[in-house]
């Protein structure tokens, strides 16, 4: 079999030949990564279980177009990472999905209510309802 038998294979994104590519392409990706490492070290799940669930979740993603950038691939990867983590935490009850939705909405309100240059405080999102 030659490469010609497999048409339209996307080229591999992000080959830079350097070892200095950023480890994370957005702060939330680093935070989501650290949450999983920290929870695993605290015994919340085994790495085997994590890899199996994460791999299954990644396998359901549709392939990105070949024009996708390295950043797009990083975002897709960490979106699956975060979705797997949310599943685990919803199932074991430590962060049920409705509570995550509510806390995320509170952070959104807090950010909107905070003038630029001031730290966004979670409490600031609490006052407003709905």
């Amino acid at each position, binding site marked *: 079999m030659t490469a010609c038998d497999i048409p339209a294979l996307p080229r591999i994104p992000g080959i830079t030949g350097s070892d200095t590519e950023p480890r994370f392409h957005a702060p939330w990706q680093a*935070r989501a990564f650290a949450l999983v490492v920290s929870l695993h070290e605290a015994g919340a799940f085994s790495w085997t279980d994590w*890899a199996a669930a994460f791999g299954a979740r*990644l396998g359901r993603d549709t*392939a990105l177009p070949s024009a996708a950038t390295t950043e797009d691939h990083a975002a897709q990867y960490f979106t699956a990472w975060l979705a797997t983590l949310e599943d685990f935490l919803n199932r074991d009850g*430590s962060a049920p999905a409705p509570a995550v939705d509510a806390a995320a909405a509170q952070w959104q309100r807090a950010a*909107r209510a905070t*003038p630029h240059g001031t730290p*966004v405080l*979670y409490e600031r999102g609490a006052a407003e309802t709905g």
Partner: protein
Amino acid sequence: MPHDHHDHDHDHGSELDDMTARVMALETLLTEKGIVQPAALDAIIETYETQVGPRRGAEVVARAWTDPDFRDWLEKDATAAIASMDYTGRQGEHMMAVFNTPERHNMVVCTLCSCYPWAVLGLPPVWYKSTPYRARAVREPRAVLAEFGVTLPEGQSVRVWDSTAEMRYLVVPMRPEGTEAMTREQLIDLVTRDSMIGTGLPLSPGASA
């Protein structure tokens, strides 16, 4: 990083993107329950952004090139040999070192997700985690190598190793010719990250930065 700044309206605050808000929500809930500590998360990020990287793997490879006893140990029990240099994995994984020879080139992938020897190479590059690499490395390794600019001699076969959560691989490339007089410290600079994944070859003497 693209998400540091969202909006520059100083009176009306800013919008958080959904992913950022969800990660902050998880951190808030888990911190309130005492399950995670923000300072511990900071420390993990700092470690993987600045401390753990492919330099460690390069030290292992350069030592294998210059110390025959260590090379044998690495071949027989890479987990122990690497642990003796204080590089141990956080996930209890086993390590296996696969040695390139004139007859066989080794290349590593994780077809399932992104299993990778963090302890010696740091975190994987995006391409290693991307679907095209995971799908193609096993199916057509020579075409993949060509995209990395690597063309192997006809007589050299390619063996692709599929990592798992329990087993991670480190490729030990062949020591480049013309390096007989070099010290171990000098050799370390020739060992690139990609040469330890198998998608590259070590630098030639004089080519290192």
